């Protein structure tokens, strides 16, 4: 009996601009249930960071509590990590980000950690436009406590226990749009072709980027009557279009139909192309995104893909006018100006 991942990798694995292979972005072997959607999301994060050629030590992974919040152990094993208190990932991410704005922040949370216990934290991170990727691994149930319905579970959806959910679900994407989120997308763990470019775009976006990922719980919520199982999601999925992420240096090669394509240049110069399925969607228009989500919901469809993007937003650092340099790079004199400075501040308040 074993449960170890062999050391060997394919001898022809591609290398990125840093000379790393995907193996350099892996983490420990997953202890989640076999077939869990979360593992696919971890693989997508690995792929995205590999493709972006991010230096692993320049990433901080922060999570709360839950199956989803365990996953940062399973990717980017050479990055910083903080497994925090239930629902408190946004606070820790905010603190870390304010202290060191040079890192890439990946927050991983679940539907319980975000839409229930962490709702108060989530909403404030959104409205402050904290520069981070906020991944919700959304399976509609509390997998770690035997599969009770969560706050994102659709009304009438039936999990393994067999009783329909009685309450209206929280739609995290529309909520984030209302709260002023500057990057909003939804995706599916079983569709890496869509998820990987979205993660790359979200990481490149300078501001709060939410990706709400449908991620089936094979153990408690993969029944025929569940709206978050593999089969239901596959049968009811609709996409805003095909997303391409083009890094700064690469030339754009694809040809596209102007009426149905929207091109967005991000802060760092990279470009996102959306080959839209729905010409009514305007990526820069919150209202059009909310309408598109509702149109699909009425048709019993789950709208995935990039929904809204404001590339010219100001993130929390710009709003607050914080110092450019991370705190760890400031010398002692700046960080501790001494009692005279304190006295001066006190004096100014008298």
């Amino acid at each position, binding site marked *: 009996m074993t449960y*170890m991942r062999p050391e060997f990798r*394919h001898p*022809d694995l591609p290398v990125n601009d840093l000379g790393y292979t995907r193996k350099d972005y892996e983490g420990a072997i997953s202890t989640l249930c076999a077939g869990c959607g979360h593992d696919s999301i971890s693989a997508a994060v690995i792929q995205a960071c590999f493709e972006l050629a991010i230096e692993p030590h320049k990433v901080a992974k922060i999570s709360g509590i839950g199956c989803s919040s365990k996953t940062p152990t399973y990717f980017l094993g050479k990055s910083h990590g903080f497994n925090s208190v239930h629902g408190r990932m946004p606070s820790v991410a905010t603190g870390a980000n304010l202290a060191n704005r040079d890192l890439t922040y990946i927050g991983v949370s679940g539907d319980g950690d975000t839409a229930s216990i962490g709702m108060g934290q989530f909403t404030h991170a959104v409205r402050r436009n904290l520069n981070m990727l906020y991944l919700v691994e959304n399976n509609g149930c509390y997998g770690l406590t035997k599969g009770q319905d969560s706050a994102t579970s659709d009304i009438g959806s039936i999990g393994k226990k067999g009783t329909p959910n009685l309450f209206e679900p929280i739609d995290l994407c529309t909520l984030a749009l209302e709260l002023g989120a500057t990057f909003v997308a939804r995706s599916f763990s079983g569709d890496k072709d869509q998820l990987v470019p979205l993660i790359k775009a979200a990481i490149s976006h300078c501001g709060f980027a939410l990706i709400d990922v449908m991620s089936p719980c*094979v153990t408690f919520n993969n029944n025929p009557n569940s709206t978050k199982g593999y089969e239901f999601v*596959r049968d009811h999925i609709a996409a805003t279009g095909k997303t391409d992420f083009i890094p700064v240096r690469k030339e754009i090669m694809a040809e596209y139909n102007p009426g149905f394509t929207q091109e967005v240049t991000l802060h760092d110069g990279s470009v996102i192309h959306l080959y839209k399925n729905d010409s009514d969607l305007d990526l820069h228009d919150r209202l059009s995104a909310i309408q598109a989500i509702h149109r699909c919901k009425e048709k019993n469809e789950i709208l995935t893909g990039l929904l809204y993007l404001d590339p010219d937003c100001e993130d929390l650092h710009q709003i607050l006018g914080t110092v450019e340099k991370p705190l760890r790079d400031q010398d002692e004199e700046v960080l501790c100006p001494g009692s005279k400075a304190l006295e001066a501040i006190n004096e100014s308040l008298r």
Partner: protein
Amino acid sequence: MKPTDIIKDKEYFHRVVDCQFACPAHTPVPEYIRLIAQQRYTEAYMINWESNVFPGVLGRTCDRPCEPACRRGRVEEEPVAICRLKRVAADHKDEISAHLPVIPTTKNGRKIALVGAGPASLTVARDLAPLGYELHVYDEQKKGGGFMRSQIPSFRLPESVLDEEVGYILDMGLVTHFNNYVDSLQDLLSQQYDAVFVGSGAPRGRDLANLPGRQEADDSIHIGIDWLASVAFEHIETIGKRVVVLGGGNTAMDCCRTARRLGGEDVKVIVRSPYEEMKASPWEKEDATHEGIPIIENHVPLEFVHEGGKLVGMRFEKVQAVYDDHGKRSLVPTGEEPVLYPCDAVLVAIGQENAFPWIENDIGIEFDDWGMPVLNPQTYQSSLSNVFFGGDAAFGPKNIITAVAQGHQAAISIDLFCNGQKVEERLPPSTNLVSQKMGIHEWSYDNGITTDDRKIVPLVELTSALQNRSLEVELGFDVQTAFVEAQRCLNCDVQTVFTDDKCIECDACVDICPMDCINFIENAEEEELRQNIRVKAVNVEQALYVSGELKTGKVMVKDEDVCLHCGLCAERCPTAAWDMQQFYYQVTKAASACKK
């Protein structure tokens, strides 16, 4: 691509077991390696004995076509030391007589003559004796074993090992006619044999008859294979101090190393071709170098230099290899002065040929333009229906394991022929596929992948090795080392079996697979699929495993090339669409053919 039919296509999974597929006798290698790891040496030995007849001999001397094929060699650098593990089974086994087939006391009334007592003939005897055949073996030497005895020096293959394994077969009630050179097939055929098997090898060593000085210095010039045989049968016990060995094959390596042990102090191998292109196995070249024998490349013999009939040296022309557009090599003189290598003796080991001076031209056996018998390549039957060939006598000099494989096939033919059945109608191999699942994360094979490097076989100390011609140089693995080496085996016979209709396309297997073998993509033609998958499948000798269409319209495509058979796909599969199943492939032997 069409879905892979793993049940109907018996060869599909066989090809995945690279070592077994490459072995001419298709020995189930991973199965016996697992048994060695479990210290079940007798069982490991018997699996070998069943398919290759001489495990102790082959564990020391095999050409090892399995090792270059070994998947481990593609995953990292070095293949599993399969050959030396085979020896471990032979070294550590218990008494095996109880496992040997029972030889019927009442014979079946058929009488077969076997010409030559080498590996091919002995294999035929091994397969036919348990069926009640009366078997007569003829050999010009005083003991059985053929070239295994006369050409392989005892420092590589101890006589006791050979005697034991040849003995298992001779003890099956064979009638031996040793010291008996068959000089007429006609005579043999007139002795009421139901069939004759010719396993007489390729007994004629090539000479340089036309080179100046060859006749005059004849006393100091020997044909390699004849010289080795004379050493083996103790007709020759010494050689001059300075010896030149001509040739670049394994016989040359055996000659030079033997010469070192018979008093040769300055022994050189001089070869026409570049070092890299020599026919000798790399490890045999290493062994010679280890014993202080230089190998001099790109030298073509010009003349034997003698003084009044006494050999004093050999003159060579220096050449270089030049390749034309088709890669065809020619050796072009460099124009430098010829070089003289002083020496007291020359051993000519430049190849060997078939020779059938004892087969009459007019008895119905057809020969081709190269003097080789015309045979059916599957049945080994000659144009004279009751005469069969095998081993080096059939298709020219190869190696022991090939002779054994051909012997098995010839035995089937002889059995069918003697029963009045068509020799072309042969049974397919027997295969089996059995799940190895014992529980969650629990398999009945050890699926952990170790990272140990290939273990090196320890040698006896050089000085004592060179003093004693019979002292075996290789010591063989001890059981601890054998275990570590056995654990390097990737268990390629434990197959990843995929069931389309159980798959929910959750991607768990794709995400966990350490080697990126597994893909779920749109179906296409093979060439296109090979380009479209996660890591391009450039090794076209390795198959793609393709499923039927799945719910999303995609198919599962697995590149077998570097799969570690670690079973993680099956461990991470929530619906058991993947399972690890042991594939057992056994070449049909004469014994089962007769039960048809």
